[in-house]
């Protein structure tokens, strides 16, 4: 009857989750409230059927990263990102400040595409919402903007370059950083 403790982040909220086997079912407590659920694995790490309080759900684990605990879960005609950490890991990360860096904005490619043009260069002062890079994907040009006011520290791409999702495009730092 050992309960396993996790910290789960979903839609920006952190939840304390404890999971314990309960016969052929699971007891799962989220922030202190317990639910009983029945899980059937249709395809390991891929497709589950969950029955929770009599309600039936088909769930697809679309993306998963076992090391970071990041998942994209598809169910109920929609999908959502979830991060699961062991409780001890989560505490350790909190103590060391994790990888959060304040006073810094890194623009990453939200999709694969071709860099049409950089709108700014290193040393430029930019405002929040100002366009930094134009990225073309699927015949459409998209202006990608800065999320904070600051100075352009570096542009990582050159015009005409193809980039993958997540590729760093530009870094903005706080003026007094």
């Amino acid at each position: 009857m050992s309960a396993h403790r996790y910290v789960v982040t979903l839609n920006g909220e952190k939840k304390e989750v404890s999971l314990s086997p309960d016969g052929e079912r699971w007891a799962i407590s989220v922030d202190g409230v317990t639910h009983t659920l029945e899980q059937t694995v249709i395809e390991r790490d891929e497709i589950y059927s969950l029955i929770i309080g009599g309600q039936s759900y088909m769930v697809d684990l679309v993306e998963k990263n076992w090391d970071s605990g990041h998942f994209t879960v598809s169910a109920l005609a929609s999908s959502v990102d979830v991060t699961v950490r062991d409780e001890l890991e989560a505490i350790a990360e909190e103590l060391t400040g994790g990888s959060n860096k304040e006073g810094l904005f890194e623009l990453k490619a939200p999709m694969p595409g071709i860099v049409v043009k950089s709108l700014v260069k290193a040393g430029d002062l930019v405002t929040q919402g100002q366009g930094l890079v134009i990225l073309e994907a699927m015949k459409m040009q998209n202006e990608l903007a800065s999320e904070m006011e600051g100075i352009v520290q570096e542009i990582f791409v050159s015009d005409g370059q193809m980039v993958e999702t997540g590729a760093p495009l530009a870094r903005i730092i706080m003026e007094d950083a």
Partner: protein
Amino acid sequence: MAGKITKVLVANRGEIALRVMRALRELEIPSVAVYSEADREAAHVLFANEAVCIGPAPSTESYLRIDKILDAVRKTGADAVHPGYGFLSENSAFARALRDAGIGFIGPGPEAMEMMGNKLTARAAMIAAGVRVIPGSDGALGDPQEALRLSREIGFPVMLKAAAGGGGKGMRVVRDESEMASALEATQAEAAKAFADSAVFVEKYIEKPRHIEIQVLADRQGNAVYLGERECSIQRRHQKVVEESPSPIVDEAMRREMGEMAVMVAKACDYESAGTVEFMVDAHRDFYFLEMNTRLQVEHPVTELTYNVDLVKLQIAVAGGEALPFRQDELVPHGWAMEFRIYAEDPATDFLPSTGKILRLREPGGPGIRHDSGIYEKYDVPIFYDPLLSKLVVYGQTRVEVIQRARRAFTEFVIAGIRTNIPFHQWLLRQPAFEKGDFDTHFIDTHFRPEYLKQDEALPFVALAAATLAYHQHGRRMNFAGLQAFSRRPSKWKLAARKEAVTRRQS
């Protein structure tokens, strides 16, 4: 080209290439796919009987290259080409090059394309043929007096438009006479600045405009018929998103009137094959000719469902010299059909395009569902082309049934790994104005906001539970596997690898 078609090259990609190849396969005519280097794994290449690479990813170097497509025709011995929509489908030089080479073109002749390809000549020709167009000046306005005189003829409100303008820029609505002088001055100044050309003309302003189009079919024998209308007013940035047939505002009399006008348009340009005549319809249900699309439309399936015809097979028959198999009075629509375009774009982030691998695909089924798709599970959507992935087409007895069925279908539809506009469709299907059929081309712009998108309220807990279980169980397995690692019986492959490693170390 005349006589029986025995092999067809489809000069297109995506869902429309598949749609055409399905018709060909039903007729037992072998199909040839052409593909760019980025499309080697595309669905149309997998479906076709034969496949020829025609160049690098950019369409200017592949799908738009007439010379390369002609090479592929020669190489494979195809005796006809179907152009789909987009790319070269309305390129008269392509149609002419095929004609010169003695290859069939499954579509209209280049003359009709040319006549309809230029908006101004098309407008002039249609006026001459007695077709109703949006009333307006046929040239640039001189002074406010001329503008006033013409506007009185047309009737207020009117729209001032920069002759060189486009895409919504250099346009200004004038609601009554008192506004004219200042509005004209402002529009001219704006036009001069934006397009370096101050010419401005005046046109009737269509309030609450709806985009409604008529499907026509014509054969070489001179027969032409219409197959009812398609309502295409649900648009975003002039891109159609949802289409239906019939239109909620068209009754039998209006259908006949629009249909007869569309046939008149088709006859005026000696049309052959399937074509579409687009109309702008105002709040009083008056309609005006806009343009003719001289090709198969994306939204042709809603007509196929309500008229129980196969437009692609009819195009092929007409291109083979056959006469249309029906007369106008035999064409009676039944039921209701709606098409939902599935785009690889994320409605939550201003419809940003999304590409990548389709990790899971589960398509809706059961009654009234047709899925015209250009994707499959494990397909990697490339970044180079139009974001249209597929079309979910829903059919039923009434408009209400179609809406209910579409809602049901979207509860079954799983496309995971990339973002799609499915959440937008789910939102749309719950809008009372949409349910009532009360909308115009501004509907999405005025009504939709990303924050209106909703997910099922049970989703967070279900996702949390599933992810936690997965993480937990994976961890258990990994620990177990670690303990077992050294006691496993080595497989044949591992032994071979070990042997090779030893060999290399010795050498």
